[in-house]
């Protein structure tokens, strides 16, 4: 996890705090193995001093490395009850254990998703420069992801510094699916009236005033990609947001200002919004007009999140058949 990831995490946390006045304190827990405390604190300061005071004073940083003292910014953060609770929660042991997902950083997974989405669409080899342009990540992040995928024998290097997936990268795909909840930046919304989700109604609202940084994902997009998609009904509306211009409050204001965000995993979500980290959203214009369609990889991840495993597998097989022809 490099400085760019740290910057992105701070901005993401600041957005969450700005959008939700009920949050008194948001604390970023940063695993410090790859970045010293001095560097981390410096990068933290570079970003947070750009933020407005009402947001900045509600942000905190907790730097953890196994065997080292926990560091905080601001320094008195360590006395905050929430932070003390975090310390007691076993988080340090989790950090020390370096979970299996450690190799799949948000940067790596985003590069992987771009490679896979372009491959599923039948695009040819892609150069490193093209990947940098599409992802807007640093060269080391892109190169590291390529190196790891080559090591896994899922990617091959070609001439002209281009690369191409060898086939459907099932090993990495399964890992990405397994931790996609952690990798994706997702906000979930419920209806305050307890009405059953009405995705077509929300989509109708969005279609009246489409936003070029919003694309439809989930079941609705799966039906667009695969006309024989086998599911009755639409459980919720999934939307994917590009990183340029994305504004969640503006989106909610357009389609349903009464929606309420929730972190309750058992809630019946009306709307689920996934925010991309990369620069090129890979949206596909809808031939019928209206909102664009998210790329097939995001759609597949939406289906897995919905526990529609069989339908996701059928969509993969369909996309593979379509690619071959």
């Amino acid at each position, binding site marked *: 996890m490099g400085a760019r990831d740290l910057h992105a995490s701070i901005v993401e946390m600041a957005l969450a705090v700005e959008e939700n006045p009920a949050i008194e304190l948001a604390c970023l827990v940063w695993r410090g193995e790859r970045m010293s405390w001095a560097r981390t604190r410096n990068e933290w300061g570079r970003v947070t001093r750009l933020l407005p005071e009402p947001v900045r004073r509600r942000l905190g940083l907790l730097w953890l490395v196994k065997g080292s003292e926990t560091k905080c910014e601001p320094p008195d953060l360590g006395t905050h009850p929430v932070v003390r609770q975090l310390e007691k929660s076993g988080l340090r042991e989790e950090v020390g254990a370096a979970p299996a997902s450690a190799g799949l950083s948000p940067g790596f997974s985003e590069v992987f998703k771009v490679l896979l989405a372009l491959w599923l669409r039948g695009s040819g080899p892609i150069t490193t420069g093209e990947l940098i342009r599409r992802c807007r990540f640093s060269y080391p992040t892109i190169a590291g992801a390529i190196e790891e995928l080559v090591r896994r024998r899922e990617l091959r290097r070609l001439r002209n510094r281009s690369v191409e997936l060898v086939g459907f990268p099932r090993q990495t795909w399964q890992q990405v699916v397994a931790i996609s909840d952690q990798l994706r930046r997702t906000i979930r919304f419920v209806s305050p*009236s*307890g*009405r059953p989700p*009405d995705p077509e*109604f929300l989509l109708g609202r969005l279609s009246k005033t489409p936003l070029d940084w919003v694309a439809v994902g989930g079941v609705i997009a799966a039906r667009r990609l695969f006309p024989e998609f086998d599911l009755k009904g639409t459980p919720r509306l999934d939307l994917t947001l590009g990183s340029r211009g994305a504004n969640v409050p503006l989106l909610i204001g357009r389609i*349903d200002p*009464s929606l*309420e965000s929730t972190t309750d995993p058992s809630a019946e979500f009306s709307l689920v919004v996934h925010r991309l980290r990369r620069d090129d959203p890979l949206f596909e214009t809808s031939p019928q007009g209206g909102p664009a369609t998210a790329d097939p990889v995001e759609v597949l991840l939406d289906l897995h999140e919905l526990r529609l495993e069989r339908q996701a597998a059928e969509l993969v097989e369909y996309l593979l058949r379509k690619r071959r022809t």
Partner: protein
Amino acid sequence: MDLEPRSLMTRLASMLPPDLAAGAYVAGSLAAGFHFEGHLPRREMRTKDADIVVHTIGAHDELGRRTEELLSRGWTWNYPKKFSPGSAETPVGELPFIRLFPPGFSDFFIEFLGEPAIGQQEAKAHGRIVVSGAHYAVPVFRFIGLTSWNLLDSGLGLKYADPAMMCLANLLSHPRLGTTRMETDIGGTACLRSAKDLGRVLAIARLTPRGEQDAWAERWVQALMKWFPQEWRQLGSSIASGLEELARDPAALGEAHHTAAHLGLLPGLRVSVEQLAGVASELNHDVLRPFIERCTRG
């Protein structure tokens, strides 16, 4: 008592003289229950009366004769406890309203309501009606005329008020919650009149698909312009105030939930008090704000 709105509507249609039925329509709880009968538990609702709005209230003699005709057909009086028929000297505000039990009923009655003049200012006016020499009154509510807009056909020989228009009339009738309480307990609670009426608004909103509600604002504007040509903008711009007050008042909101649930419009949906507040929020964003914007723009 629990009654089937469809059965009630059928019996009323068959018992009212056809020309009276043609010049009147059903409003209030029976109209709402009939419209949403598919959502009612066992297709039943709890109601004790039917509001019959008579278009020809201006012709008081005509309504008097019609009432005499009903009495001759076996309908019977249901006088409120503290009122008895008056004379020409009795102030109109002290006269009993025309409430009649249909033949064979002793726990369900109809009440005639009058249609107001365009732009009526009083919240509740009275029309004097003479029936067989005795004097009675017909209440004429300021906003009841709005419910005559876009009347719906029951298919049984009686028209009924569009629930969306009943919402408009109820919202305009209660720009504040006020302190007036119902004279009759509802499920053991003497509820605020405003909480009861606004609770019905929320129940109707909850039962109506949100896609359909998108069309309400324009219909409301058209009806309001007709009935209040001089002041429709002013009236429309303050339509949300009572509902906003209700949503902020836990006790009143509880009463609104209690009355809507007691009537039978909500139980099948298992709507909690908190969710009823959510309905208010949705209604505000979906209908009230676009309506207010339409009323206030030049």
